[in-house]
């Protein structure tokens, strides 16, 4: 018997009752589309977090104080010590203070970030106009400032902010630059802040040498772990107290985000697996009914020379065809469904070729597995009984 005849036989059997075949495939269709949609949501979320975190700057380690500011041991003194570490490329301090920025009659509550010149490079910030703070600004504690993109448009509207004087609480700053919009990073956007020299911040606003966070950039991706250890050792040496500081690694944040989406994907895949199982049982059920209905056909086929394995192949093929057509339908619905998820819930989705292959092979496996028993029953049928059957 030819393989093409096997396929033709199976198709013939299924098209004999098309509506029933369609209903039978629904379980597998739902299962496969669930697999595709959940994996696409998982992949989409993972990619989004990755780009968000990458946008914050690459190879970052963040140091913050373990105590409240009154007891903080993270001060200017720490900066050069960390900078000395072999696997560290550069560091930038960050001191945050919230207040009100105003220009003319426009006032907005905002955050001032006191930082150094290399913040631009470490945190991957781009300038839209003007320049960022320079080392000279830091050394001389000047009154220059750089505005975040949103803050600039809201304060100045149509006006050109460069060279204008902006008030932060009671202190006046001169605008030397406007940062490019960073977009939604999902964490803290710096589009709504103003940057000032950290030295000015310490002298005029906070009145102490504390630093809120230090961003440390490792020399390379491979040296992240070494850099982390070196920074840890340095901090321990400088402060003499391991509770005085907190260290977080960008890779940790990434891993955490990834593990969260992985857990979610796993959970949803579990649901998908259950619906595939139910779909498979549905196929087995219908195939058993089909075998019972077609006892006479099986008898006839055997009488005119069909071998047991040919009958087996016919029914396994039928089950597989059912299941795979359900799977293909499911893949189509999966594509459609992930589009809808993106459109309606505004979640990023990315349909993975891997999940399409997975969905297809799962449906094939379900069909063959759950079709095997009915097919085995059909193949073992006694032809005389089949011919006698009414």
């Amino acid at each position: 018997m030819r393989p093409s005849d096997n396929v033709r036989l199976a198709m013939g059997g299924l098209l004999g009752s098309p509506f029933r075949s369609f209903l039978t495939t629904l379980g597998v269709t739902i299962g496969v589309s669930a697999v595709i949609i959940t994996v696409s949501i998982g992949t989409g979320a993972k990619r989004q977090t990755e780009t968000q975190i990458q946008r914050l700057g690459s190879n970052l380690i963040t140091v913050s104080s373990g105590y409240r500011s009154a007891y903080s041991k993270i001060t200017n003194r720490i900066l050069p010590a960390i900078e000395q570490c072999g696997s560290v490329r550069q560091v930038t301090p960050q001191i945050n203070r919230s207040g009100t920025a105003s220009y003319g009659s426009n006032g907005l509550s905002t955050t001032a970030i006191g930082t150094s010149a290399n913040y631009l490079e470490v945190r991957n910030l781009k300038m839209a106009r003007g320049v960022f703070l320079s080392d000279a600004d830091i050394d001389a504690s000047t009154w220059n400032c750089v505005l975040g993109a949103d803050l600039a448009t809201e304060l100045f509207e149509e006006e050109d902010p460069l060279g204008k004087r902006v008030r932060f609480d009671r202190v006046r700053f001169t605008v030397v630059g406007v940062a490019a919009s960073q977009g939604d990073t999902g964490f803290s956007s710096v589009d709504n802040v103003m940057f000032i020299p950290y030295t000015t911040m310490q002298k005029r606003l906070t009145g102490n040498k504390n630093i809120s966070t230090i961003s440390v950039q490792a020399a390379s991706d491979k040296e992240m772990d070494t850099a982390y250890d070196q920074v840890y050792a340095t901090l321990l040496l400088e402060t003499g107290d391991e509770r005085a500081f907190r260290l977080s690694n960008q890779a940790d944040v990434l891993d955490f985000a990834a593990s969260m989406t992985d857990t979610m994907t796993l959970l949803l895949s579990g649901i998908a697996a259950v619906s595939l199982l139910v779909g498979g049982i549905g196929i087995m059920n219908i195939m058993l009914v089909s075998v019972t209905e077609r006892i006479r056909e099986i008898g006839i086929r055997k009488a005119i020379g069909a071998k047991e394995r040919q009958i087996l192949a016919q029914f396994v093929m039928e089950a597989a065809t059912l299941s795979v057509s359900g799977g293909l339908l499911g893949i189509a619905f999966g594509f459609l469904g992930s589009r809808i998820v993106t459109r309606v819930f505004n979640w990023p989705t990315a349909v993975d070729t891997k999940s399409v292959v997975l969905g297809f092979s799962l449906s094939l496996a379900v069909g063959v597995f759950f079709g095997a028993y009915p097919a085995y029953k059909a193949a073992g049928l006694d032809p005389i009984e089949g011919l006698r059957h009414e």
Partner: protein
Amino acid sequence: MSLIELRDVHKVYSTGRGSVRINALSGVSLKVEEGEFVSIMGHSGSGKSTLMNILGCLDRPTSGEYVLDGHVVSRLYSDQLADIRNRTIGFVFQSFNLLQRLDAVSNVEMPLIYAGVAPRERREAASRALKMVGLGGRMRHRPSELSGGEQQRVAIARALVSRPRLVLADEPTGNLDSAASCEIMEMLRELNSGGMTVIVVTHEPEVAAYTPRVLKFRDGVCIEDGLAALGGEPA
């Protein structure tokens, strides 16, 4: 060498977990030569259907030997039996046993599918067979669109499409009126005159009258083996 040779064939059915034993055939020995036209007669329960199943390789004897065309059938595997059914034997049944959802030509070509014949060739062979039984114009009709006599002719076409040595007809006229019965028997006679061995199982003497040799069965044994025992030529 005979085409068919049965040597002391017994068939015992046990039902009710083996407590009840029914002797369907109790020691049948007979020979059928190539090219013969034979009918097997008997009332229901005489063992003629059991004999038919054994002759058709659908069943194996409990004891004794069945030699078909030199093969000792009782020793073959089920796959080999399927091959013999496919190549050596053509079946015609009382209730036609056509697949309802297939048209005439697809029903006829079915044995060739299992013989592994290519689609175009087998379609040609099937149309040729349908033309031979006078249904050249009905190839695309489904069984439900054909009369009983026509359905039986489709079944005959299916039986002869693989050019078997032996055609087994089990009550081929049982569901037909006398005119159609006559047609079918004439057709079987024609096949026989073309060289095929034809065996007809029946309980009607009019049908048996077509065949030169009649075997009568009762209670699982052959009680009469007569050449034209019922009086030769049919009316």
